[in-house]
């Protein structure tokens, strides 16, 4: 009997355990399943571009009337019973419209208009069916509209931003995208693909889409649009880097296969979207490029130079109307020129007046295979050159980490970064340029997963006879660039050995 009871107890325990396991799997699946993406409508006008949420009512898509018209001017929506009165006061014009709960007909500027489906409200806000937004905006603005219903993108007036694509063959191959107006997409990279996502720009597809290229490293590009966004996806067979120039009108995608990868590296690893993932990306390239083919290659060792600020972010004003963003770009270009004279390739993260967020800089830097990252700042306070390596006050545990935490990715590279900092101090001192090695929690430095340094160039401590203007002096900038170039040449061996 006791064995029977024991057997039944074991059976219950086993069933209970299986039940808990099923529950756990269900909870995990629920937790891991992606949340439904919020539906959005993008509206592009000559004055402004904006996105508004799209809500579902009885399976039909609606947008809030106030959300739709508020960016056009001062909009007021008042309710009287089941009737709603909209008044939009824009510079030089006033527009009035009337809607009624449950009514498919509205009165806009005194004229009746079919909405397609009934206007509805939730007591606080009025909603119009999404298919009526083109007609409504056309009546509100008195401009022609183009509504791409499938992708929920509404163009008011002639606001299209067009672009052309051009492959520049060389070492490495480049895809140059020229836009008819400045753009500022979000850039994301993954093995074999660079994505440019346009949230606010009315970018429309080029004549041929998708476009194939006669290039070993940049294979094709395709334009797609969905949920109020446009995207250009560029297929590459090697790790790629997107840089901005021409005041945000030009984006250059540089894709480079490694010149020579150790055989061991080619067979290692699975992809990981972590800051430290670039070795995996680099290892995949030769296989994808095709065995036995000559691929124009970016050297294994190259430096990524990031001119801080740019575009909408001018940085500090350095006197005489000089902006920090212009000085940083000038110094970055001089460093590139100096490095090229030494046979070291340097790539500028921005080679024009483009706006890049701190996160965008870190994403681009981490996606590249650069051996060293330099961020250039300029100031009129203090003297000489201030050299900042990262500081981690809380202490970061690095042991057995597969993924690096985004905000402290630099912690894994502090030793080579500080070694380069010390080398640069020596080189600057040799040129009698005052330098201060410092630490800081600056971004994007903290998030860079490679040896990295932030360099703040200040006025020279004492002006040599050949330097007249201080910070903006070509001779002074060249001296600093030479010190940076020399220091990079000094540490190149140790960085390549990593």
């Amino acid at each position: 009997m006791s064995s029977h009871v024991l057997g039944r107890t074991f059976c219950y325990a086993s069933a209970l355990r299986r039940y808990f396991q099923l529950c756990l799997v269900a909870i995990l699946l629920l937790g891991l399943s992606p949340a439904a993406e919020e539906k959005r409508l993008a509206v592009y006008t000559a004055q402004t571009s904006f996105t508004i949420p799209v809500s579902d009512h009885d399976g039909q898509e609606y947008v809030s009337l106030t959300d739709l018209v508020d960016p056009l001017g001062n909009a007021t929506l008042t309710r009287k019973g089941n009737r709603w009165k909209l008044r939009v006061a824009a510079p030089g014009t006033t527009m009035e419209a009337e809607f009624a709960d449950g009514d498919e007909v509205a009165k806009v500027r005194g004229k009746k208009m079919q909405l397609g489906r009934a206007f509805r409200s939730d007591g606080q806000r009025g909603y119009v069916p999404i298919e009526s937004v083109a007609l409504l905006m056309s009546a509100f603005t008195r401009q022609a509209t183009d509504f791409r219903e499938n992708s929920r993108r509404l163009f008011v007036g002639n606001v299209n931003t067009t672009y052309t694509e051009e492959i520049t063959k060389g070492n490495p191959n480049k895809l140059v995208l020229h836009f008819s107006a400045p753009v500022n997409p979000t850039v994301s990279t993954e093995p074999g693909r660079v994505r440019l996502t346009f949230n606010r720009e009315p970018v429309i597809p080029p004549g041929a889409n998708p476009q194939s290229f006669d290039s070993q490293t940049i294979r094709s590009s395709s334009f797609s649009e969905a949920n109020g966004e446009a995207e250009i996806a560029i297929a590459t067979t090697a790790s790629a880097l997107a840089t901005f120039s021409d005041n945000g009108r030009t984006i250059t995608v540089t894709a480079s296969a490694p010149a020579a990868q150790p055989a061991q590296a080619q067979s290692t690893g699975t992809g990981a979207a972590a800051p430290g993932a670039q070795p995996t990306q680099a290892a995949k390239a030769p296989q994808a490029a095709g065995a036995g083919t000559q691929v124009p290659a970016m050297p294994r060792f190259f430096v990524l130079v990031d001119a801080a600020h740019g575009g909408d972010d001018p940085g500090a004003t350095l006197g005489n109307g000089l902006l920090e963003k212009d000085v940083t770009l000038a110094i970055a270009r001089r460093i590139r020129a100096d490095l090229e004279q030494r046979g070291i390739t340097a790539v500028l993260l921005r080679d024009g007046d483009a706006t890049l967020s701190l996160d965008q800089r870190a994403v681009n830097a981490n996606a590249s295979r650069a051996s060293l990252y330099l961020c250039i700042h300029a100031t009129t306070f203090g003297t000489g050159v201030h050299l900042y390596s990262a500081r981690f006050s809380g202490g970061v545990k690095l042991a057995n980490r597969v993924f690096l935490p985004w905000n402290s990715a630099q912690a894994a590279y502090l030793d080579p970064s500080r070694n380069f900092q010390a080398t640069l101090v020596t080189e600057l001192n040799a040129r009698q340029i005052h330098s201060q090695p410092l630490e800081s929690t600056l971004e994007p430095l903290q998030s860079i997963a490679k040896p990295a340094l932030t360099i703040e160039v200040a006025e020279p401590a004492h002006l040599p006879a050949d330097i007249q203007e201080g910070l903006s002096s070509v001779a002074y900038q060249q001296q600093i660039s030479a010190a940076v170039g020399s220091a990079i040449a000094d540490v190149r061996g140790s960085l390549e050995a990593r």
Partner: protein
Amino acid sequence: MVPRNLAITIVILLAALAGMGLYGLHLRRQAVELLKTNANTKPVAAPVSGPTEQVTVFIPDDDHGTLSQRTVAAALPSDPTLRAREVLHVLISQWQESDSTHPIGNNADVNEVFLVDNGKTAVVNVNAAFADEHRSGIMVEELTMAALAHTLGANIGGIQQMKLIVDGRERETLAGHANLMDFYPTNLEWHSE
């Protein structure tokens, strides 16, 4: 020929006109002085009474990139959070002196200081002018953060780190450079004089 009485009248009127002109200029000068006095919105004294104490403050030197220590006598409340705020008021008023080596906007101020994590972390809420009028540059901004953290650490026992928020909200940078999303330790190493 102008009659004598008429000539005398004209001379008297011209003299009166000149006198009124001079008096008008005098009034204008007075009004300008009054406006200048009213425009100075800098707080003149800490609103605390009682015996004064020695407050250690850290004064950055923007030109040399250094922090120097100074002691100032000030009346401080006993409550730690009010005391921390008062200490920072004293520090900022030093920066607002006309001969300051680390000038900051006249309207810059500390709204509140919150002590959290058993008094180990100070969250300093400054007003928008503090950040908006701050000079832009890595070193000047880092000096501000280091001086605030050092001053808190030197005067309020137990504080180990500081975080700055602006008008009650987190902000990415102070004036385009110093990272305000991070904490600044009160024992932060800096070149001191």
